[in-house]
């Protein structure tokens, strides 16, 4: 049985594509067969985050318009043999595809034997959003602890409900524990309380994310805090119970340094 997951947020720039890349890679590292679909037509990004931008021949719109077969458009990941990417079209716009066509595409991919089909949704609530959620079984709503992102997330949660999405979970991204402690940033608990929705992941604001994106290599599963947080999300998606990370955890040497600073 394959599960179709849409990663969405409403607001742009909160980390949908980074989340899709890391969760997808993480699930593949856990031996699942995974395909990532970039549904942001006209603003292609998932390919660069995955480091696969030089391998694109066909794209999503080519598949939908019948210019190629699905298998021809799927790009195999560099590192994970059971991970594939279906890139978006860069020179077309969102009206090139409709929700019915997306549903059919997802159904066709299901018969290819994928365990997980991840849809990276564009920002906004228009056509692109409607396309992305059309074939999805569950949704991951990404937000950051900022008023604008949370307000948009609330709107998205409402729209998902209106579209009868039964399984929606929250990911709070870019948490800065130093600011939360000072009272200058809403905590993960605050966000959950405001949005009244189950949380599946809390990801710290981590410099390593920028480095990983620069290199086109998702950091999921490495020893950075963000890498661990993403891997935990993957385990939770697979139905395992994993306790939430202590995002305040610092390395041994930082602690040692602080000890000397205090005295």
């Amino acid at each position, binding site marked *: 049985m394959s599960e179709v997951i849409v990663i969405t947020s409403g607001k742009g720039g909160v980390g949908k594509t980074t989340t899709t890349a890391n969760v997808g890679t993480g699930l593949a590292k856990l031996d699942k067969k995974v395909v990532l679909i970039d549904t942001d037509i006209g603003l292609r990004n998932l390919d660069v985050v995955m480091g696969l931008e030089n391998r694109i021949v066909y794209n999503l719109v080519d598949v939908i318009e019948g210019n190629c077969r699905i298998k021809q458009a799927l790009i195999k990941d560099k590192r994970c043999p059971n991970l594939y990417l279906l890139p978006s079209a860069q020179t077309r716009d969102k009206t090139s595809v409709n929700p019915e066509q997306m549903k059919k595409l997802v159904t066709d991919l299901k018969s290819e034997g994928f365990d997980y089909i991840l849809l990276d949704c564009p920002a906004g609530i228009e056509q692109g959003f409607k396309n992305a959620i059309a074939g999805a079984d569950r949704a991951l709503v990404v937000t950051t602890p*900022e*008023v604008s992102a*949370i*307000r948009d997330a*609330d*709107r998205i*949660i*409402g729209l998902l*409900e209106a579209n009868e999405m039964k399984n929606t979970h929250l990911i709070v991204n870019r948490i800065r524990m130093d*600011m*939360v402690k*000072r*009272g*200058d*940033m*809403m*905590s993960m608990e*605050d966000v959950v309380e*405001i949005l*009244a*929705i189950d949380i599946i992941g809390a990801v710290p604001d981590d410099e390593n994310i920028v480095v990983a994106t620069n290199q086109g290599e998702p950091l999921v599963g490495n020893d950075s805090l963000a890498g661990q947080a993403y891997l935990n999300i993957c385990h939770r998606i697979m139905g395992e119970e994993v306790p939430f990370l202590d995002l305040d955890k610092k390395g041994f040497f930082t602690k040692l340094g602080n000890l000397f600073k205090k005295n």
Partner: protein
Amino acid sequence: MTIIDKFFKKKSSGDYAKGRLQMMLVTDRANCSPEVMEAIKRDIMDVLAKYVEIDTEKLDIQINQTDSDTHNGSVPVLLANIPIKSMKGR
């Protein structure tokens, strides 16, 4: 934050953000703009003014969230607190 700061400092910016969001989402979820809210207020007052004299100063009408089994556990509810100065004689 030291104890002294806690007592004397104003509300932290995180708390402020949370408060603002909670207010914002109430109107967002109720799909009710401030203008609509004003119009509702005005109409309720007009109807009541036919029968009673209202203390317009202390009038308070708002849309809040209340617990429910559907819609993410909460639905909007209209709360009105309208002090009556006197009943109008028939």
